[in-house]
């Protein structure tokens, strides 16, 4: 069993759950405490020891069901294959096997008396020999089932069965009894063959799942955002969530390393009382780094909507890294959407920002107008602690770019970072006015894929605020 739990843990790790060795050991000893009889208990045990973040529970559930699908199901299947229990037959068998010191093949022994889990272990052994790790497609199930089958010496088993039958006959069983026993033995053989096939099928499902996850992460991370299908957009949400988490983890680590700082005067003085007011021992306080303020300004016209969606999701998932996040969306008219986030869960807030905010989503993009409006209404609410994260392709439909507005905004804030979801080669060509806006920005980055978006935001959270300190 231990081996299976460890393998399961391997699957969890591949799905990006972080599980330390000590937690893996906990899982082993805890499941030894509760045993396997009750699936729900077993599952709760693994969850309690391995999953320490509630957001990982969903992944855990999915993988658990895939992995331990068979524990009971297999047992049940075996029973069904064997037909109604016939304890008498098994008794008679056990007797011969015990009495006549027959020299039987190991596998025959197993088939005659083994439990589901032992048989499964034998199959796993066979699977290794058969190179099951090369299994990839549904069409290969039959092939690999046969290959695993071939690992076993079936002729030896058949010889053994004949031996057993002869021994039983010699004991004077009547033909009716003998026929029942022979039937029983064949059913057991058949059940074993079925277990092999089930094992291969389950292995395929696991692989498909694993590969699917991997694929989502790797392929989607590098796919241009505008080219995502609705399905992919949905899958991408979890990719972005994981990205947010990685950034957060890394930041937390750095903060922990930076903890030492100012003197904690209260504690130091209190301690000094013991020494007549002389501060013999000095206590340090954690440096309170002021968290950055952030304003996101997103172009939500059709061409870049996906990019905006993921940037909003990413930023909003990183709330606690900022002391304040305000968000605006625009096509031509510009509107604040921060309140949506305060009122709804992230998903809905984003849907609302992309569809329900008071801007005309179907008009033609006009960056210049949006910036001038923003400068008119929001300038006083800006300050030097605020960074503006801008997302847009700067395709201005030949409208007046009004770059002065962006420069004005820049003077009031700590900096402007511009993410452009269009490839860099297109900047300045046609109606793109990126080169006109770039001088007002501190950083301008291409951001065509989720991978690039992640990099920029990661950089932002980690280093941008340290500059100029």
């Amino acid at each position, binding site marked *: 069993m231990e081996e299976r739990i460890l393998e399961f843990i391997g699957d969890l790790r591949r799905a990006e759950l*972080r599980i*330390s060795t*000590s*937690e893996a050991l*906990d899982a082993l*000893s*805890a499941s030894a*405490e*509760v045993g396997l009889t*009750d699936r*729900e*208990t077993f599952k*709760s*045990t693994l*969850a*309690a*020891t391995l*999953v*320490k*973040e*509630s957001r990982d*529970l969903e992944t855990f559930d999915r993988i658990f069901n895939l992995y331990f699908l068979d524990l009971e199901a297999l047992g049940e299947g075996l029973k069904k294959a064997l037909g109604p229990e016939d304890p008498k037959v098994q008794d008679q068998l056990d007797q011969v096997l015990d009495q006549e010191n027959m020299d039987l093949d190991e596998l025959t022994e197993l088939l005659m008396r083994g439990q589901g889990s032992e048989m499964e272990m034998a199959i796993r052994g066979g699977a290794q020999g058969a190179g099951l790790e090369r299994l990839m497609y549904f069409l290969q199930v039959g092939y690999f089932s046969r290959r695993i089958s071939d690992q076993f010496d079936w002729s030896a088993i058949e010889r053994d069965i004949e031996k057993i039958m002869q021994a039983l006959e010699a004991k004077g069983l009547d033909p009716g009894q003998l026929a029942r026993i022979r039937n029983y033995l064949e059913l057991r053989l058949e059940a074993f063959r079925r277990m092999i096939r089930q094992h291969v099928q389950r292995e395929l499902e696991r692989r498909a799942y694993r590969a699917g996850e991997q694929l989502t992460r790797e392929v989607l991370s590098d796919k241009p955002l505008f080219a995502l299908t609705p399905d992919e957009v949905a899958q991408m949400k979890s990719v972005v969530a994981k990205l947010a988490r990685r950034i*957060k983890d890394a930041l*937390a680590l750095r903060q*922990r390393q930076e*903890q030492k700082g100012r003197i904690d005067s209260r*504690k130091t003085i*209190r301690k000094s*009382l*013991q020494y007549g007011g002389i501060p013999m021992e000095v206590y340090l306080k*954690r440096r309170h780094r002021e968290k950055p303020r952030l304003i996101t300004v997103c172009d939500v016209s059709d061409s870049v909507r996906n990019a905006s969606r993921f940037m909003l999701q990413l930023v909003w998932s990183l709330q*606690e890294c900022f002391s304040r996040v305000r968000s605006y969306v625009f096509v031509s008219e510009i509107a604040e959407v921060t309140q949506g986030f305060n*009122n*709804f*869960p992230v998903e*809905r807030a984003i849907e609302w920002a992309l569809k329900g905010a008071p801007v005309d989503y179907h008009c033609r993009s006009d960056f210049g107008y949006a910036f001038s409006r923003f400068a008119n209404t929001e300038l006083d609410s800006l300050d030097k602690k605020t960074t503006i994260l801008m997302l847009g392709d700067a395709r201005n439909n030949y409208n007046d770019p009004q770059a002065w507005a962006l420069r004005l905004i820049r003077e009031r804030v700590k900096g402007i970072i511009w993410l452009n979801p269009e490839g860099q080669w297109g900047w300045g060509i046609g109606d793109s006015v990126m080169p006109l806006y770039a001088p007002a920005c501190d950083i301008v980055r291409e951001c065509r894929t989720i991978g690039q978006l992640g990099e920029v935001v990661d950089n932002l959270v980690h280093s941008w605020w340290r500059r100029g300190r």
Partner: protein
Amino acid sequence: MFESVEEVQHRFRAARYIASRRISTVVFLAARMGRPVLIEGPAGVGKTELAKTLSDVTSRGLIRLQCYEGLDEGKALYEWKYAKQLLYTQLLRERIGELIADAPSLPEAVSRIAGQDDAFFSYRFLSPRPLLQAIRADDPVVLLVDEIDKAEPEFEAFLLEVLSDFQVSIPELGTVKAKHVPLVVLTSNNARELSDGLKRRCLHLFIDFPNPTDELEIIRLKVPEIPEKLAHAVVAAVQKIRGLELRKPPSVSESIDWARSLVILNARELDPTLVESTLTMLVKYEKDIERVKGALDKVLAETK
């Protein structure tokens, strides 16, 4: 302490707490393995109550450490009673004077005073706070560290040390080691991420809103006078309302409150006017109330 997961479930029930299979399993493991349990989940799903019930069914005393921002070792572990120490030195001034009166030199006087350290740094002058109380307790206890996410990360690190070996060293008095390892329950409302170290050390239990069957049991248990039909209606409605994506969905304690007030109003079943007029027992934000009101049809659909 417990022989089986089922036993946990039964004994908790007898103590008026409905523990799901998951909850019972984790409690069982915590008792078996002597591990702290970290409970996360929305407000009012019975996190604190679980610790109380655990102390109940094991007949162990409950020691509670309520966390808050700025909580430090002094407030959690122990503090010297400075005022009392000062008072005593004042009162004993003459005796101290006598002690050093014939000291030939300053160093000699100092070391004579130092010789009396023990008198002033003893348990007499120490106020033990919850953690030290739990460690020094003569009988086994349940230690509840409530809302750990409210304390600062440094405190968490300190707590982790205490939870790892259940011993603390008080420089003036030496090391104190727990006679019995306490059963430790930590709760968190997820105000911030907890450290990996702490999470690794603990068994993790996420308590979500109960499923309808469990919630019905809880209501029956806590509001025994409720008519059966109304209890069903309340549970169905509450579960629906939780599905509305509210800013703060109703918790178990709120559905209990609601059920209670419906009983006081002598209600036998739910109708829109009744629900509207009692809704504030259940949802607190203006926006949420509006939302529920707008969806009353849906909410009441299956409560008849």
